[in-house]
């Protein structure tokens, strides 16, 4: 296991920047992995009033390290209630009681639509797991945060298949479909993209340390808007790094790069 002195890794920085997207007193729905760690970090630092909700039916848990599934006993620890999927995705998410959802996907396009269903490889279609609760979260949460590694194939102009709505076909797309307005943050190991209803597309708004705009463009399958002055993402202070490494994921379940062989 690496010591606290080791420099922050790019994937750890994803988690820290993810945590910074969360405001005080938010209700967050997240799966496991980096999104859950980001939510827990925020809860332990800048957003103590944050309440977590998990699609399997867990309402407001106090998570113990380190759940690997939405039904892991470690994520069912000390909750307000252990209920059902219908209660969470219907009674909280569709009902509008969750402010921010964390999502992933194999592809995210220029309009922030997500694909977790089918990928085209030449003439073949490759099957992915499907929506799960993602479509419900992207349809009904006012803010969506995506944490992902930055690869060109993950960022096409258009998704091969739209599982989860971002801005659909652009400004007004969600309203025409019958969905409420959305704001999006996509955090990668290279940059942060942001988007809202006014442009209906992703804009490069921040760069990870040591990364240039050209690096982002080379690794992105669409030409993103670029903010006039992209912000520099800051590294965490030692107490936050210690919190992540020693308390939230002490066995580096989600950071293989930190495990000693």
């Amino acid at each position, binding site marked *: 296991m690496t010591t606290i002195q080791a420099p922050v890794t790019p994937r750890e920085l994803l988690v820290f920047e993810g945590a910074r997207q969360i405001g005080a007193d938010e209700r967050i729905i997240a799966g496991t992995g980096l999104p859950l760690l980001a939510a827990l970090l925020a809860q332990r630092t800048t957003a103590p009033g944050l309440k977590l909700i998990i699609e399997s039916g867990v309402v407001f848990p106090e998570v113990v390290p380190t759940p*690997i*599934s939405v039904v892991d006993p470690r994520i069912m620890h000390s909750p307000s209630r252990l*209920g059902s999927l219908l209660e969470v995705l219907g009674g909280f998410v569709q009902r509008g009681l969750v402010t921010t959802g964390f999502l992933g996907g194999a592809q995210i396009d220029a309009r922030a639509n997500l694909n977790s*269903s089918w990928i085209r490889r030449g003439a073949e279609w490759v099957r992915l797991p499907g929506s799960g*609760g993602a479509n419900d979260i992207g349809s009904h949460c006012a803010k969506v945060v995506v944490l992902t590694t930055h690869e060109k194939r993950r960022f096409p102009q258009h998704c091969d298949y739209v599982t989860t709505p971002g801005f659909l076909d652009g400004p007004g*797309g969600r309203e025409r479909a019958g969905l409420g307005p959305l704001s999006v943050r996509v955090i990668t190991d290279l940059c942060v993209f942001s988007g809202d209803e006014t442009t209906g597309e992703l804009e490069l708004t921040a760069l990870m340390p040591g990364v240039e705009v050209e690096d982002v463009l080379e690794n992105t399958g669409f030409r993103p808007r670029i903010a006039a002055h992209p912000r520099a993402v800051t590294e965490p202070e030692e107490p936050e790094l210690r919190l992540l490494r020693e308390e939230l994921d002490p066995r580096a379940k989600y950071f293989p790069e930190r495990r000693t062989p």
Partner: protein
Amino acid sequence: MRQLLGGKVRTAAAAIAEFAWHGATIGMGGQNINRCPMALTHELIRQGIGGLTVLGCNLSLPLDQLAAAGLVTRTEQGSGNLERYGVLFTWRRAVERGEITVRDYSHLAMASRFLAATLGLPFLPVRSLLGTDLGRDLQRSGDVSATTDPWTGQPVLLVRACAPDLALVHASLADADGNVIIEGVSSHEVDMVTASKAAIVSAEKVLPSGAFAEHPEQVTISGAHVDAVVEQPFGAYPTSVYRHYDFDEPAIERYQSLARSGIGLAAYLRDSVTTHPDFTAELAGLRTRCAELEASMLELT
């Protein structure tokens, strides 16, 4: 007519023989690595009951093993994966080859379909799926219908009621009348069982009739909706049962590595399922491991 009281206790073999048949639609319990009805689905494999349509929200290990045994022709689901441990590889291969037909929903859309059937309704509206390829494909296949809220004019999609022929669920506790207690989250299972035409519930322990009489409010699913109960300790192994035992990560990883390549899966099913007379015999060599998983859960709860 359902039998309302008593006499619902069966072995897994007898319950599956009585209530499952070739071509049935199966409502699948469990989610990811938790409370999957492994003892009941292994019995489907032992009896070779095929042509199945499997319905659920997250379909997990039981579906992949049924697909590996060649027993599945269609699935309707929210997702087919084991999260961190990957997609359901056998299911994926069969879907890509056209051997299994799929209908893709979101979790909430599937849960709403079960709720509709539970309430005796033909359909329910959802505001998920709108504007996406997911919703478009389901409209094209005639599985959902687009309409508007008659009062506000807002778009909604109508999803059809889903009433499986047979629900299979593994629970913490049951009594001989089929009353069921689920500890931990219940995922989609309550609405799925109450929606189904028949239900078999296996449980870690089955108590005599009247065992829950002092606290009937703790019953998760009434025996009114359950046709057979099966006592099967570790009946969800290698997945977990909250307050009873943790999931067996190395066993799940071993299965996934076989499923990924597809090589050795037939031998796996033979050696770990069909060669044994029942689920208890399957677990005979795993007593030490099971004790470790109990200890791990005890620490967490």
